[in-house]
């Protein structure tokens, strides 16, 4: 095989894509459709969430996911090519994989489709991580502290990022649809090329560019289609929407994306060395990339992500416009903080946290803000985090009431210091998580912790 084509319909499953772009993509006869369905970008909430918890539960996103899945499944099956989904459900735990698999089975039933589906899990047991830790096989990734057994015990869910190998195995076993848990971003896209013997460095580098859909094009878009074509010693990328184009700038920029070191892309099992990479404008909308080399690590390591529960959050949003109130804003916030500590003294100081973000002053940059001026109005975001949702809501309500009725010196308008946009003022926002594991773990082989289950869908 001289070349292989991989279609990437969108940056994240659920972001959508124009039907025309998908049609154009399929007209190019790709050999596989691959899509990244998750990320740590939105934070640890989706990693930490438990069944039935929170307002933003996984079920909320079912409609959005199905809207993307339906045309992709149909297109893939019609063209008899695999559909490969990785980091399912945002965080790629077992709950998330099952949720997406259930959606897919529902679509299959509605559309009368039959296919072989592979489910690949990525959740890791606490006991395994602690054992590896004891063996000195767990190390920090970046500026994070060493992992302790207590950290592991506090994690409500731990996933490992699988490399390309489990996807290759599932394809070898005849999977037509693959739903995988947490995976390293390029893995879904590099699997078919690697299975067909294309260069691993080129395959993974191409996967890294394709995984964000048309973000690697100009104008960029997270909701549009891009096609990758890999050949023996180079690969090409091109957007499917005629209003976009790939340029050397847009593609090279995407190689830097989310990586600490622009010259080396760290992946499970090795590194892609970009020191001899070259980007060339092949046509006015297609870019050619060559020179990417895969360097195998002597020890295979996977990235672990773990989340712990911090508490429950309730928020209140209100505007402040009165210039006199604005001039006394900090005084009001401080007074509210002190009074709240008195009122909720029984909870114990370590049991709750209170945050104020003042949009219009330093809500976005916090301590990094260099501007000292304040706008003519501010948006105040009050956030209470406590051990239970009820406590968080009680605290938030008390705080907003303190600020609302605070009698600062020179106050002439006593109706209230806060402009609430709606009722209720205090909005329970569900569980709060924190990433508490962000470490590398040595594994004996690339497949052992990523079990693959094959299911014949539509065969009841």
């Amino acid at each position, binding site marked *: 095989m001289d070349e292989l084509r991989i279609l990437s319909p969108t940056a994240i499953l659920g972001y959508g894509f124009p039907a025309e772009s998908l049609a154009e993509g399929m007209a190019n006869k790709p050999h596989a459709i691959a899509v990244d369905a998750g990320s*740590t*970008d*939105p*934070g*640890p*909430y989706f990693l930490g969430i438990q069944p039935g918890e929170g307002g933003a539960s996984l079920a909320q996103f079912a409609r959005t996911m199905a809207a993307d899945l339906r045309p992709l499944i149909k297109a893939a099956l019609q063209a008899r090519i695999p559909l490969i989904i990785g980091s399912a459900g945002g965080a790629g735990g077992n709950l998330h994989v099952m949720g997406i698999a259930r959606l897919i089975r529902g679509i299959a039933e509605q559309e009368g489709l039959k296919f072989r589906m592979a489910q690949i899990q990525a959740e890791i047991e606490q006991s395994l991580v602690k054992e590896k830790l004891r063996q000195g096989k767990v190390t920090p990734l*970046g*500026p994070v502290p060493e992992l302790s057994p207590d950290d592991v015990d506090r994690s409500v869910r731990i996933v490992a990022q699988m490399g390309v190998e489990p996807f290759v195995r599932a394809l070898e076993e005849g999977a037509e649809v693959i739903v995988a848990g947490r995976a390293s971003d390029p893995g879904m896209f590099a699997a078919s090329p690697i299975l067909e013997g294309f260069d691993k460095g080129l395959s993974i580098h191409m996967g890294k560019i394709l995984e964000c859909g048309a973000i690697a094009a100009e104008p960029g878009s997270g909701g549009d289609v891009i096609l990758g074509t890999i050949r023996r010693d180079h690969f090409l990328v091109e957007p499917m929407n005629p209003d976009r184009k790939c340029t*050397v*700038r847009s593609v*090279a*920029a995407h*190689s*830097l*994306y*989310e*990586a*600490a*070191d*622009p*010259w080396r892309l760290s992946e499970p099992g090795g590194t892609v060395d*970009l020191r001899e*990479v*070259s*980007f060339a404008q092949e046509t006015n909308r297609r870019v050619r990339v060559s020179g990417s080399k895969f360097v195998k690590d002597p020890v295979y390591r996977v990235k672990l992500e773990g989340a712990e529960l*911090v508490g429950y959050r309730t928020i209140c949003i209100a505007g402040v416009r009165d210039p006199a109130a604005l001039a006394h804003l900090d005084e009001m916030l401080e007074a509210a903080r002190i009074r709240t500590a008195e009122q909720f003294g029984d909870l114990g100081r370590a049991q709750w*946290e209170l*945050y104020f*973000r003042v949009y219009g002053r330093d*809500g*976005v*940059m*916090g*301590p*990094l803000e*260099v501007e000292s001026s304040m706008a003519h109005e501010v948006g105040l975001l009050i956030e209470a*985090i406590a051990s239970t949702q009820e406590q968080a809501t009680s605290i938030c309500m008390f705080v907003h009431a303190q600020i609302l009725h605070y009698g600062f010196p020179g106050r002439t308008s006593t109706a209230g210091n806060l402009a609430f946009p709606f009722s209720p003022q205090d909005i329970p926002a569900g569980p*709060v*998580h*924190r*990433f508490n594991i962000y470490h590398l773990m040595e594994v004996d082989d690339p497949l052992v912790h990523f079990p693959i289950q094959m299911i014949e869908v539509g065969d009841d």
Partner: protein
Amino acid sequence: MLTLDVFFKEREIFRKVRDAGVITKASLAELYRVSEDDILEVTFFEPAEALKISIKRWVSSAAPGDTDVFGAQQHVPLMSLSFELEK
């Protein structure tokens, strides 16, 4: 970790800025008012005419107290960085 990627419009400007040595861990630490140890990486990447800066986050993404989960709006101090270049 916060990563900021700066893309220069022209290769000449990229090279002059790189060679002038004005963007360093020290100058960025001063701009962001953090310690130099918190500026993790300052790398000029010629294939994309880009400068990559990595800064240790003052709070982990989406941890309590965070103001920008995606780190999407923290590049603003760079916009006020000014310096002289040789012709």
